[in-house]
């Protein structure tokens, strides 16, 4: 399953502020503010300037986290879809 390749903006396009378990981000290219719940910030970090498929992202995140989900592939593609709609990741 190859799936589309995504990429996120360089880290300097975003300002992060942790608000309890959430992350508020200001996305400079759009001027928009988003509130992210995990694993969205981790996905953005995994894709910053580094294109990858959903599988690649899962592998990159698994380097630092234990993943806990029944259908990881479906969940990851849903997360990427949300981030794409918000303009935070794009097709590479």
């Amino acid at each position, binding site marked *: 399953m190859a799936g589309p390749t995504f990429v996120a903006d360089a880290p300097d396009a975003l*300002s992060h*502020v942790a*608000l*309890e*378990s*959430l992350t*508020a981000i*200001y996305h*400079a290219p759009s*001027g*928009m*503010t988003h*509130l992210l719940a995990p694993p969205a910030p981790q996905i953005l970090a995994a894709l910053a300037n580094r294109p990858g498929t959903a599988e690649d992202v899962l592998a990159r995140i698994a380097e630092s986290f234990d993943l806990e989900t029944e259908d990881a592939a479906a969940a990851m593609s849903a997360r990427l879809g949300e981030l794409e709609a918000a303009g935070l990741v794009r097709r590479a």
Partner: protein
Amino acid sequence: MRHRLDLTIGPVSFRIGSAWPQPIAQLAALYAPYPKPAGIADFTVRLEPEKPWRRLVRPSVAIHGDYTLPDAAPLPLAQGLLAAEMGMNLQMALGQKRFLLLHAATVERDGHALLLTGHSGAGKSTLAAMLGEAGWRFLGDEFALLDPVTGLIHPFPRAISLKNQSLALFDSAAPDRLGPVLKGTPKGTIRHLRPPADAIARMAEPARPALILFPRFNRDFEPETRPVGAAETFVRLTQASTNYVALGRPGFDALTRLVTVTPSFAIDYRSGEEAAALIDTLWSNAT
């Protein structure tokens, strides 16, 4: 325009023009002790008839100005003072870009500001007015102006808009501080109250925010205090601000800083005294 009044309130100045003398005369009386503006107005408000002949025939006041909203319905001339107040609010809501605008009532003590925010009808105007008569300095009952550079709240002490039952609470105020009773407005019966003299005298003095409260008035609730987390406060305040999005990065920095350093609580109260007691407790813990 035929009739004109210039007003300076805190860091903002207005030029108000009217096709009729009454709204201007009422405004001039209500704002009599305010300092005279230096000459240049940030915003222009126009109170004018929708069609030229409506100046004299069944006169109704359309609210126009630098910024105007579609869907706005005019008000009868008897409510011209309310139209002027709404006109100034409208310019602030749509045009203010120097300060992050929070829909909140604000009072100050010892250089620290207390913000009361929440939807209209929560009682924040009345609470701020009461606190303003009881040892706090009144900063504003409508908009808190957060300076994105300094993080300070600037006073914007406009006339307080008392609604319905709360009119009776201020019957004993000096008569020259009260505007006409406006019956049958979209928000019921309204009467404007000029803020206390020290609020006007010190309207150039900002204050550091120390406590954010989301008050809720309801006779059927037991009094209650609930801490509100930074994320929830953040989202609620973005929705209580008309210019958060338009301010871009400075707005984000200012608001995230505010919610991460300022304690925030929701309070339920049944009477002014009960609210004052809850506020006292929270205030002494916060400052």
